[in-house]
């Protein structure tokens, strides 16, 4: 407490407020955390503010404001050496100044700024952004390379937040016709995140739009390779495709049910409508009753329950084909929990406190308080199965902090906990390698490898350990034997290393082992079969008041059985009829002979046979027109439903399915096909919207043509 007070006393008042808020924020679990880079960036901006006070003209160079050239040198030498960030800003500013005077001459300064801020990614990131905004192409690239080198040496594999920012900037630059700037920003985004396919996808799209076939192919191939090489990418893709499939099927089922409910609504509710005050119009009573399901939905009744409800109300009136489809729908809804279970099995690999996810983060990220915290917390409540991998995570973090001996102890402990885990063994090899025990490391790598040529990180480590023993050709041999994916992984690391470093930092000497895609899929498959998953309402995304997931399947079976029994039972007495003239639904109470009340009123008092027949014809035409209008309206609102309503055909079914796909895709959550912090990830969103537009246009044309025909016949009548 005392120390905190002392620290506080030195801060100005606004900062006190900020600190209290930061403390409050830390204690509040629903606050969204910043990443270390984002937190660092915010701090860097504060540092830059201080720097601007000290050296306004240097700051002006970076921010692209007017500069008094004669004061630059003086300001630079006045910078305090102990203020590392300030000096870094100064160097970058000077570098940019010189670069603009004479291209190529600013490089040493910019390199120096990167070196000075090696440990402060936030400052580097700010510099990268200033160079992007106000610098030249090469100054930006150089600054970016500096960031990349610092990131890699600190053990970060990727900085998705930086990459996504650059992609956003690239998008804006592209729309401002600054193609070169956009291009270089995208290329750098891809380097700052060499794992995700998203930056490469952005480049593929940009190349394709510029009709650059070579570029499109190269970047497309890179997208493909990244998906193939990293199991996390495959997981994301598989999870999303599964979800898309589930949503599509669910939406198609909903559309079908909706069509039938609308089609049979008068039959469903007529008897109920008769219980409402009969002196109001029947249409009003129907609409009022139609509000019930809407209200239920608004009140939060889930789609599962609504589906079952719709199946029940439609069943009695449904035709044979419709009943078959409804049976499928009921059973499909029943197996939802299992489909979701499969999703959830994949999904559990993303659990932020889950072992795999924590380990993945430890491999991909550098050390941060947050991550350390996460590992400790997970270790605190880990089962004995999970403990080994989490202990390994801890060891890797220790290594990323530079505590090699401690890391070795911890990884040994992990190995003791689970000696058969290849990832732990490989890491043990890594630690031994880093403290110079090359032979032991080589032996361990070779044992783990055991003729397997598909594990990139392992082969890389093996090659390194042999090379360090002086056999320089061994890496080439290994690469020649490695599988394509393994070679890709090794190539990426080798390229990064040769680009960024003359002397490799420890974090770049070894690659941390990862679960290969094949291993991951086997694990997921086994977990699913062993029913190591739970499904809750969120996963089903059905609604707030709904059947609990456990009972959905038995319930659907029971419902199906009931429907079959109920449908086969002969109706005791026919209670609903259709008006023979206009087709309206009527019951014993409201029918007048063969006519509904409406037709009866219109026909009453007309005795002349011919006159009567004419009137009957007119009523028939009107009701025909009404039905057609209804159909076309449905087709316009949800293309295909109107067609299905009048006559179930395969074409109409396909149309509805296509609509389901597009709706599922474009109504779905952002970040659909990849987990990434940019909107760019809505791969093919344009296509989906395009198809939707097409479907609706066709619906509109059908409507206009239909109406035209109506109008023409009406003219002829006249």
């Amino acid at each position, binding site marked *: 407490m005392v120390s905190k007070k002392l620290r506080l006393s030195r801060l100005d008042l606004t900062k006190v407020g900020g600190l209290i808020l930061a403390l409050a924020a830390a204690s*509040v679990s629903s606050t969204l955390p910043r990443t270390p880079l984002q937190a660092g960036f915010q701090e860097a901006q504060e540092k830059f503010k201080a720097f601007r006070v000290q050296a306004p003209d240097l700051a002006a160079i970076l921010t692209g404001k007017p500069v008094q050239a004669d004061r630059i040198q003086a300001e630079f030498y006045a910078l305090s050496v102990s203020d590392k960030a300030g000096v870094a800003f100064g160097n970058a500013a000077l570098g940019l100044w010189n670069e603009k005077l004479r291209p190529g001459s600013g490089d040493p300064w910019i390199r120096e700024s990167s070196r000075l801020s090696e440990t402060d990614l936030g400052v580097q990131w700010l510099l990268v952004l200033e160079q992007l905004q106000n610098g030249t192409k090469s100054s930006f690239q150089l600054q970016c390379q500096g960031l990349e080198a610092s990131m890699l040496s600190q053990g970060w594999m990727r900085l998705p937040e930086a990459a996504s920012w650059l992609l956003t900037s690239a998008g804006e630059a592209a729309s401002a016709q600054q193609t070169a700037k956009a291009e270089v920003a995208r290329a750098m985004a891809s380097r700052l995140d060499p794992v995700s396919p998203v930056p490469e996808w952005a480049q593929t799209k940009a190349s394709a739009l510029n009709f650059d076939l070579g570029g499109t192919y190269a970047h497309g191939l890179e997208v493909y390779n990244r998906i193939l090489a990293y199991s996390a990418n495959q997981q994301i893709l598989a999870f999303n495709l599964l979800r898309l499939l589930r949503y599509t099927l669910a939406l198609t089922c909903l559309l079908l049910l909706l069509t039938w409910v609308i089609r049979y609504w008068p039959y469903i509710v007529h008897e109920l409508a008769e219980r409402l005050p009969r002196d109001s119009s029947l249409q009003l009573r129907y609409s009022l009753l139609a509000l019930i399901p809407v209200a239920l939905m608004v009140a939060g009744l889930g789609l599962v329950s609504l589906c079952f409800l719709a199946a029940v109300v439609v069943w009695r009136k449904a035709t044979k084909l419709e009943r078959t489809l409804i049976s499928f729908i009921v059973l499909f809804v029943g197996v939802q929990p299992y489909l979701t279970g499969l999703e959830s099995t994949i999904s559990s690999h993303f659990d932020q406190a889950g072992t795999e996810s924590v380990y993945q983060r430890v491999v991909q990220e550098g050390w941060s308080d947050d991550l350390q915290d996460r590992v400790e917390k997970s270790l605190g409540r880990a089962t004995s199965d999970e403990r080994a991998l989490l202990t390994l995570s801890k060891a890797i973090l220790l290594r990323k902090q530079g505590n090699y001996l401690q890391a070795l102890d911890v990884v040994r402990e992990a190995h003791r906990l689970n000696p058969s885990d290849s990832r732990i063994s490989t890491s043990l090899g890594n630690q031994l390698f880093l403290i110079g025990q090359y032979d032991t490391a080589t032996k361990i790598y070779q044992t783990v490898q055991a003729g397997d040529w598909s594990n990139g990180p392992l082969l890389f480590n093996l090659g390194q350990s042999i090379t360090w023993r002086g056999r320089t050709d061994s890496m080439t041999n290994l690469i020649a034997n490695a599988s394509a994916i393994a070679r890709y992984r090794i190539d990426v690391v080798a390229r990064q290393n040769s680009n960024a470093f003359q002397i490799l930092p420890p974090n770049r000497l070894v690659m941390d082992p990862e679960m290969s895609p094949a291993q991951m899929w086997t694990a997921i498959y086994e977990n699913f079969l062993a029913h190591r998953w739970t499904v809750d309402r969120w996963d089903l995304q059905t609604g707030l008041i709904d059947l609990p997931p456990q009972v959905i399947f038995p319930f659907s079976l029971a419902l199906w059985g009931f429907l079959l029994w109920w449908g086969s039972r002969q109706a005791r007495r026919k209670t609903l009829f259709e008006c023979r003239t206009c087709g309206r639904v009527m019951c014993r109470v409201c029918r007048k002979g063969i006519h509904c009340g409406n037709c009866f009123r219109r026909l009453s008092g007309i005795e002349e046979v011919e006159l009567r027949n004419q009137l009957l014809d007119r009523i028939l035409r009107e009701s025909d027109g009404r039905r057609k209008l209804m159909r076309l309206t449905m087709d316009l609102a949800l293309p295909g439903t109107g067609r299905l309503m009048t006559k179930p055909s395969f074409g109409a079914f396909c149309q509805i399915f296509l609509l389901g796909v597009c709706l599922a895709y474009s109504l779905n959550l952002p970040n659909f096909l990849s987990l990434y912090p940019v909107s760019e990830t809505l791969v093919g969103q344009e296509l989906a919207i395009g198809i939707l537009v097409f479907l609706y246009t066709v619906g509109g044309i059908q409507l206009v043509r239909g109406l035209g025909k109506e109008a023409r016949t009406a003219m002829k009548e006249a």
Partner: protein
Amino acid sequence: MAQALNGQLRDFSLPDVLQFILQQRKSGRLTLTFHHQKAEVGISRGNVSHVDIDGRNVETVLRDWLLSSGRMSQEDLAGVESVSRSMDRSILETLVAKKFISAEERAEWIQIVAEDLICDLFQWQEGAYEFNTDLPASAMRGVGINLSTEMITMEGMRRLDEWPRLRDRLGSPGVQVSLAQAPTSYADLGPEALILRQLEQASAPVTLDDLEHRVPFGKFRLYDTIVAYADEGYLTLRQDGKTFDSKLPLRTDAEPNKSSSTALLLAMGAGMMVLALVVNWMISAAIGHLAMVPERGFIGAETRFEAIKLHNAVQRFRYLTGDWPNSLDKLQSGTSVTRGERNSSMGVEYGYGNWGTGYEIWLRERSSESRKANP
């Protein structure tokens, strides 16, 4: 060109068939068969012009009635039939010519008898139907029937509906009818008044079966009329020596369009929606209150990336403008955070607070506490 339409009544009932023929304005002969029964309906431009059920038609029904009611003797009939044959005209016309019935009566009886015959057909729920246009209706010797198909269908359906109640009331054996009080004028009551005349002639109560032979009406018309007359007080109904009234509940279908119930219904609808919205609000408030940043599963990962995106957007806004945005809405211009992206994948909206020196993003309903923390 000859056209044929055929099928089973089970699939396509008689009203449907007639309706179809009427819509097409077809002429021809509709034949219905069920076991050994056979019925023929002549149709001319969609309307009924002839009917014959197992040899019973307007002529035979009227002839039988004249015989059984004693208005004509067997010898008279033989004479009429030979005259008709030699002059090649219908028996009815000869009957009119010989003054057994009057010309006005004739038109009335034709209509009534034909109606009753056809209405009986509506009871056929099974059997086959066949409609042929090759045999013109004129080929069947007509007696001048012209019934609106649509009216007759209506009447037939009405009779189907009401028949069970009439039968329950009068169909039990031993029901006897006698005249209670003669009406002031028979002419006002129409041709059905024949029933009262017949009862007047009979001194003792008459059983229904007996009465049926004395009038040319179908069962339905007879029972229906009897019930109506009983209600009027013209007739007395007896069974096992006791009198009873027909006690058929009268149906009144007054449908005045009262605006009050329309308003009531509208209010009900509005009330229902309001209730639903309240429930929705309550639930989402409860959920929002519980909302924590999800950590489990894909949603957890999504939320993490959403957080990165939102923080990026806010920081980018500040980097470009020098100020923190006042709300996430402000981000729409200048940065690429759409409305959808400001909602979490869980469907809960993100909250945002800016206090000059910093900002915070949280799941909804945190706002109140965060505001408390920030005076």
